[in-house]
Structure formats: C-alpha cells, structure tokens
C-alpha cells in the first residue's frame, strides 16, 4: 500500500473481487446471520444458524476451489488489489482449509448450542469473521494486510472465549486472551514499523526484492523488526515462551470455541508466519533459524512435559497443541520447500484432529460444560463405544500412530528437519512425541480401562505442584478470588470438580446420562475421523495439495 502511495499519489486501486470472493462470502455470511438474528420475529432454533454457517463454508469452499483452479489453470499465481493480496497455491490452499474448518465446526458446535440453550447467531457469526481473518492472513502480501487479518482473526476469538457467561472462567479466559493479544499485536505493529524503516516498504514482495538487492545482513533495525514480527506470530501460534495464555484460555473458553480457536488461530498464524519468513525474510534465514531452533525445542519440550501432569483434558489438549506447534516449527526451521510443504501438511491435518477431539470433549462435558477432568472419561468405552472410538482414533493420531494422518504429519516434518541436517532437533522432536504419546494414551486407557482410578495415581500427585488452576486467577473475574490463596486457587467450579473426582472412584461413578449425538455432530465427527484415517492410509491427496501449495509460492 505504501509503495503504491509513493509512486502515484492516492487512487482507488483496482479491486479484483474474485480474488476476495472467499473472504467476502465469509463476511457476507456473518452479516446475514446477524441480520437474521436482529430481525427475527421469534427465536430460531440453533440448527438454522448452524446450517446457514455450514452453507457459507461450502460456498466459500467452492469459491476456494474455483480460485485454486484459476491459479493452476493460469499456470502462475498473481497478486491482486494493488499487490496487497497474493492469489497463489498457498493462499487458496488455506482458503480451502479455513472453509473446511468452518464446515466441520458448524456441524460440531450445533449440539453444544442446543444443549446450552444459546439463542442467536453470534457464535457462528464470530467464527465466520474469524475464519475470514485467517484467510486474509494467508493471502496477505503486505504487512498492513497481515495485521488487518490478524485482528479480524483475533477479536472474534476473544469474544468467543468469553462467550459463556455462566462460567466465570470463560470471561476470565476472554479477558486474558484479549489483554495479551493486544500486547502481542502492539509488538507486531512495532515490528512492521521497524521493518518499514529498514526497507522502505511493507509489501512482502518489495521487501524480498529490496533485501535480495541490498546486502544488509548486519542491519540491526531490520533484524529487530523481524524479531518483533516473529514474536507476534509465535504468540498467535502458542510457541514457548509466548504460550502461557494457552492453557488458561483453552480451559476457560466454551469447549467448541476452544476447538475452533485451536484450529483457526494456528492456521492464520502459521500461514502468515510461513509466508513472511519464506519470502521476505528468506535471505535472513541464517539469523532467524537459530531462534526457531531454540523456540521449537522449548515448545516441543514444554508442551510434552507439562501435558503429562494435567488432570483437566482441556488443559492437556492445550499443552498438546503447544507440542504440535513445535512440530510445525520444525518445517519452518528447515527453511526449505520440503519444510514448508511438511508444515502445511501438518497444519492441515492438525486442524481436523483438534476439532474432532474438542468435539468429543464438548459432548462428554455435559450440560454446563463442566465435566472436563480426565476422570470423567472413565468407562466411556462402555457407555459410548462409538464416541470413545472416535476420540481414541483422534488421540492416537495426535500421538502419531501409523495409519493416521498424525503419523505422516510427524514423519514429514521430521524428514524435512533431517534433510536440512537439523538432526538434534529431529531427535528431540521424536522424543517429545514419545512423551506426549503417554498423555494421549492415558486418556485412551481411562476410557477403556475397567478399574477405577487407583488412589493416589502417581501422575496426579495430590497437592503436588499444580500448574495454576486456570480458572482460578484471583486477579480477574473470580468471585472468590481474595479468599483463596493463589497456590490452591480454585473457583467454585474447580472445587466441585475436584471433590467430584475424588468421590467418583469410590462410589463407582454414577452412570452418566447417555450422550445423544445429533446427526450434525455425528457427521462432523465422522468427517474428522474419516479425514484422519482415510488420508492416513492414502495420503496422496492432502500431501499433493500441501506440496503444490508450497510450489506456487511467490
């Protein structure tokens, strides 16, 4: 944009609406939903909104496929809207992915909305807006547009996190996410400013051209700018040490929103991160590769080790998502075409894994969305065999079991790391994968195990070092805050949970009411599990998608 201004004064650029079509469909869908919600004469059942959202996702998917075809048919990617948007294999692949996430999430969240009696279209409208932000981030060819996309992605997520007004943690999660997100956005904008100062442009292609013509490896301004931008991205994808919001927000947010957030934030964050650091800052790779190396290791290790000691499944999955982020960073660290296509593949498959996993957690959570201790999954294999099977497959896939996409995802990023000679990183990644497998399998064992929890299971040391009970911060939102010490901090809800899980084993778990799956949820779960298994056995389609997405990179 700034380059545009510099050359020809202000003129309205030609706007290629076909290039923007998927984003426009998403935003249009959101407006439509809100309009219907505002004009309604009587309460519409949630499934109407869910269906509309799903339809919007399908429409945007079709538009995405159309664009994909155009990019491939024309044989070359192109930039649109004053070169601020790139329409290439990369951006269209992410359009397709974000649309798929919307479709699956609209199917999976419906049961939650009906169960909790959420009236109105806000939930779905927010997911649509957020997804349009993720698409924009993936397509952005200009830092200003990236920032725009980042905010469009993030602000709906803050609201989604705080959507459940009946649980104090939800509001707290939204608040925390918002404050820290704003903090990281500020860092990001500062990074844009420094980069502009160093290169005279915010356009990715122009920065790349500038850097390839001017040797400026010792430019402190540029490096600092890149560093600040990196922090902004790493915050969004929850890499250590910028991850600390993740467990609290994942735990506090309404569960289906957590699944959506986990998928879409990673998609948007990684899309822009990969694009920026593979195009504009590729010449600086000797400077940022060591940083990514360290961050990846920290992320992998912290995610795996802290995931082990969680007793709340949402927190556990939060640490698991941190571990996955570490794996995806492996692809970035390799700084090769192979690496980026491996990272893309990982982002693709992870989105489905995390959506499906949180969907099952939502269903098990029960009315009020409160049964999230790992103990509440005990005996699920007998009570709800299909549901348990779905979760078992998704968790095994996250652990990297063969015949699932999770295995191939890990395989490809590790392979990319090995071919980039990052042997230590590859080995550490695999080791943390093994550690992480322990906590995935623990849930599977709990679901299928027959014995009640042994008293004082070693993995949950009573009164041991607990990582902050999240909902518990006395700082914001907790009604009992002052009367609880931060160490044993717990809200009313958390206390109830703990006593509940202590009573549970001795009173042989009161039979939980059977969970009823609506057709939509069953279809959504079948989609996530199907993608995971089918493309785990037959990986060619997704992999070639990821591969051609990386080839078309400009």
């Amino acid at each position, binding site marked *: 944009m700034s380059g545009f201004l510099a050359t020809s004064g202000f003129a309205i650029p030609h706007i290629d609406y076909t290039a923007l079509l998927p984003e426009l469909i998403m935003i249009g869908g959101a407006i439509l939903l809100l309009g219907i919600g505002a004009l309604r004469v009587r309460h519409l059942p949630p499934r109407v909104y869910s269906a509309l959202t799903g339809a919007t996702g399908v429409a945007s998917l079709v538009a995405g496929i159309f664009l994909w075809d155009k990019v491939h048919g024309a044989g070359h990617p192109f930039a649109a809207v004053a070169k601020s948007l790139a329409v290439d294999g990369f951006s269209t692949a992410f359009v397709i992915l974000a649309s798929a996430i919307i479709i699956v999430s609209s199917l999976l969240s419906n049961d939650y909305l009906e169960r909790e009696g959420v009236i109105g279209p806000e939930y779905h409208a927010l997911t649509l807006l957020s997804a349009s932000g993720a698409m924009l981030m993936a397509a952005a060819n200009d830092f200003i547009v990236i920032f725009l996309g980042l905010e469009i992605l993030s602000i709906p997520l803050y609201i989604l996190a705080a959507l459940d007004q009946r649980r104090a943690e939800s509001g707290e999660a939204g608040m925390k996410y918002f404050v820290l997100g704003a903090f990281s956005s500020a860092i990001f904008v500062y990074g844009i400013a420094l980069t502009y100062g160093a290169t005279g442009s915010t356009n990715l292609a122009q920065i790349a051209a500038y850097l390839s013509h001017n040797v400026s490896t010792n430019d402190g301004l540029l490096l600092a700018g890149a560093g600040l931008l990196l922090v902004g991205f790493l915050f969004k994808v929850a890499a250590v040490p910028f991850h600390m919001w993740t467990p609290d927000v994942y735990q506090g947010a309404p569960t289906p929103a957590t699944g959506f957030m986990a998928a879409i934030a990673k998609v948007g964050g990684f899309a822009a991160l990969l694009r920026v650091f593979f195009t504009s800052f590729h010449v600086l790779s000797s400077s940022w590769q060591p940083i990514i190396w360290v961050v990846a290791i920290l992320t992998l290790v912290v995610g795996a080790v802290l995931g082990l000691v969680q007793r709340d499944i949402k927190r556990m999955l939060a640490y698991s998502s941190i571990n996955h982020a570490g794996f995806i960073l492996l692809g970035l660290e390799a700084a090769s075409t192979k690496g980026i296509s491996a990272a893309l593949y990982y982002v693709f498959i992870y989105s489905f894994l995390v959506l499906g996993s949180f969907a099952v957690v939502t269903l098990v959570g029960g009315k009020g969305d409160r049964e999230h201790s790992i103990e509440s999954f005990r005996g699920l294999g007998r009570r709800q065999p299909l549901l348990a099977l779905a979760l078992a497959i998704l968790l095994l896939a996250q652990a990297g079991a063969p015949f699932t996409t999770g295995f191939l995802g890990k395989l490809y990023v590790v392979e990319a790391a090995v071919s980039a000679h990052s042997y230590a990183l590859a080995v550490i990644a695999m080791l943390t994968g093994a550690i992480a497998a322990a906590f995935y399998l623990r849930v599977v064992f709990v679901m299928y195990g027959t014995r009640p929890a042994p008293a004082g299971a070693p993995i949950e*040391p009573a009164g041991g070092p607990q990582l902050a009970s999240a909902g518990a911060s*006395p700082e914001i939102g907790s009604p009992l805050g002052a009367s609880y010490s931060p160490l044993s901090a717990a809200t009313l809800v958390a206390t109830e949970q703990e006593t509940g899980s202590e009573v549970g084993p001795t009173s042989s778990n009161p039979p939980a009411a059977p969970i009823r799956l609506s057709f939509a949820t069953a279809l959504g779960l079948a989609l996530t599990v199907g993608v995971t298994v089918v493309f785990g056995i037959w990986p060619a389609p997704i992999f070639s998608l990821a591969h051609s997405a990386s080839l078309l990179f400009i």
Partner: protein
Amino acid sequence: MIHAVFLIPLLPLVGFAVLAAFGRKLGNPLAGWIATGAVAASFIVTAIVFAGLFQLAPGHRSFTQTWWNWFSVDRLHVTAGALVDPLSMTMAAFVTGVSTLIHLYSIGYMEHDPQFPKFFVYLNLFVASMLLLVLGSNLVMTFLGWEGVGVCSYFLIAFWFDRPSAASAGKKAMIFNRIGDAGFLLAMFLTFERTGSLQYVTVFHRLGHVGVPSLTAIALLLFLGAAGKSAQLPLYPWLADAMEGPTPVSALIHAATMVTAGVYLMTRINPILHRAPDAAHVVAIIGVLTAFLGATIACAQTDIKKILAYSTISQLGYMFLAVGVGAYVAAIFLMLTHAFYKALLFLGAGSVIHAMNDEQNTKTMGGLRKLMPITAVTFLIAWFSIGGVPPFSGFWSKGEVLLNAYGYSTWLYALGALTALLTAYYLGRCYLLTFSGQARWVEARPAGDGHGVVGSAPPVESDTSNPNTPTERVVAHHGGAGGQEPLHPHDPSWVMSLPLVVLAVASVFGGLIDLPFHPNFVFLERWLSPVVGASLFNGHFSVATEWTFALVDAAIALIGVGLAFALWRGAVDRPAVEPTFLQRAWYIDWGYDRLLARTSTLFAGFLATVVESKVIDGAVNGVGTLFRSGGGVLRRVQTGYVRNYALGVMAGLVVLLAYLVSRAFT
C-alpha cells in the same frame, strides 16, 4: 477384467467395516450371511481375474497393480499395490474359496453364540488381511497382512476369552508370532539396505548385486518369520493351543489362511532361496523334522482337535521340506490339497464336537458312524486323502514332495516316508476312536450327572500346561444345559453339511490339477512355472522311477491304514502305543515353560521389583521431585496472572532481540 484385482481384498474389508459398524443391529444370522457374501464375492472376483490371467500368454502373466503411493522417505518408496501373478492368484483363489465355505459353516456352528456378529467381524478382517498378504506387491504390504492375520488370530483364538485357557492360548499365539515377526522385520531392513527396495519385482531384479551371505541371512530371517506363522520348529507350540478358538477358526487358521502364509512367503522369495542354498538346506531340514515330530505327537493325543493340530504342524513341515528342496510347485500343490482335506477334517471335527455338546475327547466318543453318516464318510475321505491312499488328492501331492525330497537327499526322503506312514496311522486312530466301536458317550454321560462323570473320564488330560478340564468346556457355552440332557448326535444342518460335501469332493479329485507321469497333466506346474521356474528334480526322473515311488507311497499309506485298523478297531486304550512322552509332546512345551517362560517370569519379576521400583520409579520420582522443587518456579510462571504472562512474553522478546542485535553487531 484382471484389473478388478483390488476388489479381492477390498470386499472382505468392506464386509468387516459394515459388520464392525452395524453388526449388532444386523444380528444373527444376517451378519453371518453378509460376511459370507463378502468373501464369496471376493472369490468370484478372484475367479474372474484368474480366468483373465489364464488367457494371457504365460510370459505376460505377471504385473504389478499400484493402488497409491503410501509413503516415501528418502529412497524408501512404499506403494500400496498388488503383485498379480499365477502364484498370488492361486493363493487368492484357494484362500477365498475355502474361506467362503468356512464362513458358511460358521453360520451354523456359531448360531447359539451371543457374540455371533463379532465373530464374523473378525473372520472378515482375517480373510482381508490374508488376501493383502498374498497379493501385496512388496514386503511392507505383505507384512501388513502378516500382522493383520496375527492380530486376528489372537482375537479369534481368544474369542471365548472368559475361559482362562482360551485367553492364554491367544496370548501364546501372539508371543510366538512376535518372535517370528522380529525376523520378518529384520529381513525387511536387510533387504532394503542391500537392494534399496522392498518391491518384490525390483528386489528380485537386483539380487545379482547382493552377496550370498546377505541373501542367506535374508532368507533365514524370513524363514524365522515363516516358522512363527506356519508353526515350524522351534516356534510351533502355539498352534496346538490355538485349538481353544471356535472350531471354524481352527479350520480357517489351519487350512486356508494363517499357517499357509509362511509357505507362501518362502515360495514368493524363491529367487532368494535359489541363490542361498544353505538357507534352503536349513528350511528342508527344519521342515522334515517338524513333519516327523508333529506326526509322532499326533499318534498319542486324545483330544480330536489336538490330533488335527499336530497333523497340521506335520503337514506344514512337508511343505517346507518341499520348499527347501526347491520343489515349490510341490509345496503349493500340497498346500492346496491340504487346504481341502484339513478344512474338511476340522469342519468334520466341529460337527462331532457340536453333536457331542462340546466334548473333544475321542476316548469318550465312538460309534458315531451310523448316527452321523455324512460327517463320518467325509471324515473318512479326508483321512484317506491326508494319509496318501491312492487315488485321493493327498497321494499325488505328498508323492510329489517325497519324490523331490528323494532327489535331494535320501535321508530326507526316509524321514518323510516314515512320517507318511504315521500320518495314515494316527488319523486312522482318530477316525476309529470317534466313529466306530462302542458308543462310549452313552455310559459316560448318564442323565443328571453329566459334569462329574465327564470330569472323571479316562485319564486323558495329559497336557498339564493346559489347566482347563473338559468340564469347563462343556459348561462354558451353548448354555451349559447340554451336560444334563441325553445326547442325540446327528448330522448338522445344511449350512454345515454343504461345506463338508464340497470339501470332500475337492479332497478326492484335488489331485487332478497336477498329475505326474505325463507332461500334459502337470497343469499346476505349467501354471506356476513363470513364477517359480521348473522344479529342481521333478521331470528328471524316469517314468519307471515315478511309478516305483507311487507304488511305494501307496504301500506305505496302506500299511498305515492297516496298522490303524489292526490296533484301534474296537480298542480304546493301548498304552503301549501312546507313550507318555508323546502324550506330553516330547516335553517340548513343558521345556519351554520351564526354560523360557519361568525364567522370563523371574526376569520380569526382577524388573518389576528391582528395576521398576528402584530405577524407573526412582527416576520418575526424581523427575517428580524435580518438578516439585522446581514447582515454585513453575507455579510462578503459570500463575494465572496476566501480568506474569505478559512478563513472560516480554522476557522472551528481550532475549530474542538481544540475540538478533548481537548478530547485527558482530
């Protein structure tokens, strides 16, 4: 037409998926019919592909169908695909054919079982795995099927897992197979390391560049795998215990699927064996020893299924003998005919067991011939077939194996011929005890006190490693009421009788596919020759020699049959020919138990008490303590306070910037 080959494993797999999802709703017997239909459809597709392949010129009867690229890492490209050639299609044809009959039979056999649909879920997966195994175009696909068969056998052997003996038999099968699988895996690694590929065609193409020691190692490691799967020395004991599964499972494992996998694998890698004569020698010796050992043990067993189990072990030994001496056609020929008569024997035994309310002890049977004529006649045919009585199919196939063994070594032939004599004898004993003589089950089961009397039946429970008594078997299934009611043994319903008759016909005429004496009659040999080449010795014998051997074989078989009649007609106990050491299976199982199982139990105990509690727990506790002591730090990090989180972000930022700035100024 021949490109429909992908349907062959897919159809049972779809059957499996459908039954796994909806089996309980479909219920009994619809689930069974769907499973049978899936396998039957697969058989039809196999027949079509087979016919299509037959129409091609012999040189063009081999092609690889690639389904998709499974994964590729560096030089390793693994595709999912099928290698279609006369060998794989022959295997597919008989696997699907025999499996269809066994499925049909199971509908009748399992009709009272509450787990009816689950049984067919496993059966279909079993057949799908086996088809993947024989059709796979590379070692990885074969291994996939190999493992699938292994895990299904575990599920099926331990199908009645509420019996401790069945559960432990399942585990035993799993463990013995794992030992073999380790060999298979190592062989794959070595093959890839030496040839850079796992695709059969490519590997065989590159064998010229591989040294003989490597080839010997590959062949022997694969043979270790084959020995596990096909129950050869020293990994055979699981097969005898595998009898704990429902009888159709035994038939499936013994006749059509699992155990033939090893023979198939060794035949498939015949180019490797051809270049590694030492390995082939080992295969032949192990084969003939197993054949002899199995036959001797079978002579003294009293449980009808145990007799058949050891008989299978023995017959598989013959097949490996044939493979070892380079007579691959003879091995496949014997495998085919054996599939017919062994399936027939097991299904016949199943009918008897069914009729006797789950009694398996031959000593308490007798006199069933008149009451169960179809079963008795088909069992008799199977006995004559396996015993090698002319002109039944076993006569031709076993004759070919022995002839080739003679061409290789006289000693192998001598031991093989002796085993043939024993084979005809022990199945005669089994037949006579079961079907002729007095109806001993009448007095053995007076009304009202069935359990106690069966428990105190003749001292036959020889196998001490097998803790269950017949009593448990009787009460375990079919409602348990059977013990009290007087028995009325009768032939089973048509779904169970039809497979018996079909298999009996096949057992009689199966020899027609590969008759000696004239080059025009060796259909199987000509069909398989593009894959395995000509037999080393067959065809080099004069017609006179072949006739002589045929006569000798016939004489041996008839002596065996005669011996059985002489000793067991009307007799029940002859301790002189049932020595304890044979009843106890040469004490090999006992030895394994003492030597390996107990020591490893002790070792496991050591690990549990010392290593686990001291070393590992120590480490875990140490880590825990580490966390706990570092807990202050961690707690301070993950407090829930936004300001602390922001501080964390800030700290990370500062370190990162410091690093970058340091780079900028160096």
